């Protein structure tokens, strides 16, 4: 285990995990002195009946939500944040319960900044460390097993009018309580389960081999990787497996803890750019790019990448594989996992960038967009934490390989 000369780690979120963990909501709210919570969610979560489960759990103690906002869009937006804050104030709420995926949780974090700071303009809090005091009580209930937002100290909110994404970072953005209940992810379709699971895997893997790794984040990252390797394909094949669902939700939480402290690298760097240029869901990009991120950095981080084989493939495979071959075997194992997910979803889970289609069947990442993606990636700060440096030509090399679905030619990777 690497012991860096210096590192930081923070996770102050009380995490409640279980098949009926939501039943703890009343007591949990009481503990943080919340009496008039506002529920923030999106239409999909509402229509799946998940809010009813939350409300039923609350009503057992005669606790009612003071307001319900169920119109968070897929891509969190500053206008929506303002609207949520307005309702929160009008209904005299005193706390927030966010039920949803990354967009809902980020919207709730943004709204919590506004109502706690009694502000109207989110822009003044953009950046790291600009939220400087404790915010209103905040409970996060994730409904996907991927983002890990319930334990991260960041939020990304778009301003579609100005065409920018605003990133907020502060330890005060960490929720007070995260509740992980297997019922919340039970209705996730197999394709979404597959790519959100790969998103969580990417968080854990990048946290483990990138520059800000540390012994504390390593521990959570390795546990997350093992849980995902053992459960993801099974749950995609059998969505009603509640134990598997709970394991994946916990893995996402652990991976969130890891990457919130150790940050991420090339895979997120390029993934953010593809999302920005082509509007491809984040998890889909992570899934496709993960093997390439490992291959690109292998000459610098072969030890750590080799160590990932243990939680991914298990003790037997790890011991049978000679040390020198473990890094490549790790990549091979992840490619096999992607192929298994592709097969388990009848080909709906894309393996390469050229295989990503929208609902109308249109290809989302045309090859001619790769230069735009590369240029956008050069402005994304996730590159800071990547072990190897990247220039425009390096981005193009990785993107072309990921588009075609061929492994990186590692001889072409420039080494300093």
């Amino acid at each position, binding site marked *: 285990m690497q012991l860096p000369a210096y590192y930081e780690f923070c996770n102050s979120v009380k995490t409640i995990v279980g098949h009926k963990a939501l039943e703890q909501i009343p007591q949990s709210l009481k503990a943080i002195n919340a009496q008039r919570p506002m529920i923030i969610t999106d239409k999909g979560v509402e229509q799946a009946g998940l809010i009813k489960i939350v409300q039923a759990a609350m009503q057992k103690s005669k606790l009612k939500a003071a307001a319900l906002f169920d119109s968070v869009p897929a891509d969190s937006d500053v206008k929506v944040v303002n609207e949520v804050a307005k309702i929160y104030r009008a209904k005299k709420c005193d706390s927030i319960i966010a039920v949803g995926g990354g967009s809902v949780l980020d919207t709730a974090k943004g709204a919590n900044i506004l109502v706690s700071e009694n502000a109207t303009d989110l822009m003044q809090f953009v950046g*790291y460390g600009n939220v400087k005091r404790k915010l209103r009580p905040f409970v996060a209930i994730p409904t996907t097993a991927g983002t890990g937002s319930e334990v991260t100290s960041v939020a990304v909110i778009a301003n579609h009018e100005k065409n920018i994404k605003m990133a907020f970072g502060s330890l005060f953005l960490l929720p007070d309580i995260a509740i992980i209940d297997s019922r919340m992810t039970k209705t996730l379709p197999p394709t979404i389960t597959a790519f959100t699971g790969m998103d969580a895997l990417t968080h854990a893997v990048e946290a483990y081999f*990138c520059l800000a790794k540390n012994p504390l984040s390593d521990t959570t990252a390795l546990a997350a990787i093992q849980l995902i390797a053992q459960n993801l394909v099974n749950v995609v094949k059998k969505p009603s497996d509640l134990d598997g669902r709970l394991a994946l939700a916990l893995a996402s939480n652990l991976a969130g803890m890891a990457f919130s402290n150790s940050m991420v690298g090339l895979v997120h760097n390029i993934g953010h750019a593809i999302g920005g240029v082509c509007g491809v869901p984040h998890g889909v990009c992570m899934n496709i790019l993960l093997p390439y991120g490992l291959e690109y950095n292998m000459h610098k981080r072969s030890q750590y990448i080799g160590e990932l084989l243990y939680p991914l493939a298990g003790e037997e495979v790890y011991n049978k594989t000679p040390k020198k071959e473990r890094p490549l075997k790790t990549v091979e194992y992840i490619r096999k996992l992607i192929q298994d997910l592709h097969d388990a979803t009848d080909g709906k889970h894309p393996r390469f960038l050229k295989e990503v289609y929208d609902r109308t069947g249109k290809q989302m990442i045309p090859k001619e967009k790769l230069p735009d993606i590369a240029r956008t990636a050069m402005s994304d700060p996730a590159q800071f934490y990547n072990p190897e440096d990247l*220039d425009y030509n390096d981005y193009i090399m990785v993107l072309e390989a990921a588009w075609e679905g061929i492994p990186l030619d590692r001889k072409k990777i420039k080494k300093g």
Partner: protein
Amino acid sequence: MNALQYPEIKPKKKFIKRIYIAVMLWVVGRAIQAAAKVDREVKEEFAKLKDNFLLKMWIWPNGPAMYVGKTKDGKVKYLGWKDKGYKPTLTMTIKSVEAAMLLFTFQEGTAISTARNRLVVDGDLPDACALVRILNIVEVYLLPKIIAKLAVKRYPKWSQMNPLRKHFGRILIYVRAFTF
């Protein structure tokens, strides 16, 4: 209770280290200005930055500091170490004198310093990415390979920076940085 029994603990001033860091900031600032005239890549990076770009690099909480910005005619200028009411568009804060010493004695590169949360950036993140690329190039020019390799993630190969460009650029940057 006699409050005088509990005197306020004041941090040591660390004069020598502060002087060393101030000199290094001056050298880097002047070298950025020089590199923006000499090196095509640095020139292009600055051209993409907004017209009012102004960098403040400083050591928290009391300095030293250095300011580099774009002038009205688009030239890149080292603006000194004094705050003359500047409004930086990008602030790079090094959290302590000790963190700055690690960085400026090349025991830690910029990337590791950032990963260890010793260096905090406030401002537009694309600008920060461009600035890191600029700093990397400047370090390659200023430092001998054996030291620069510690400071940057990847020392450029011939294909990225041929020896003619490197050595000729190095001479020009040193001359421009140290002459007024």
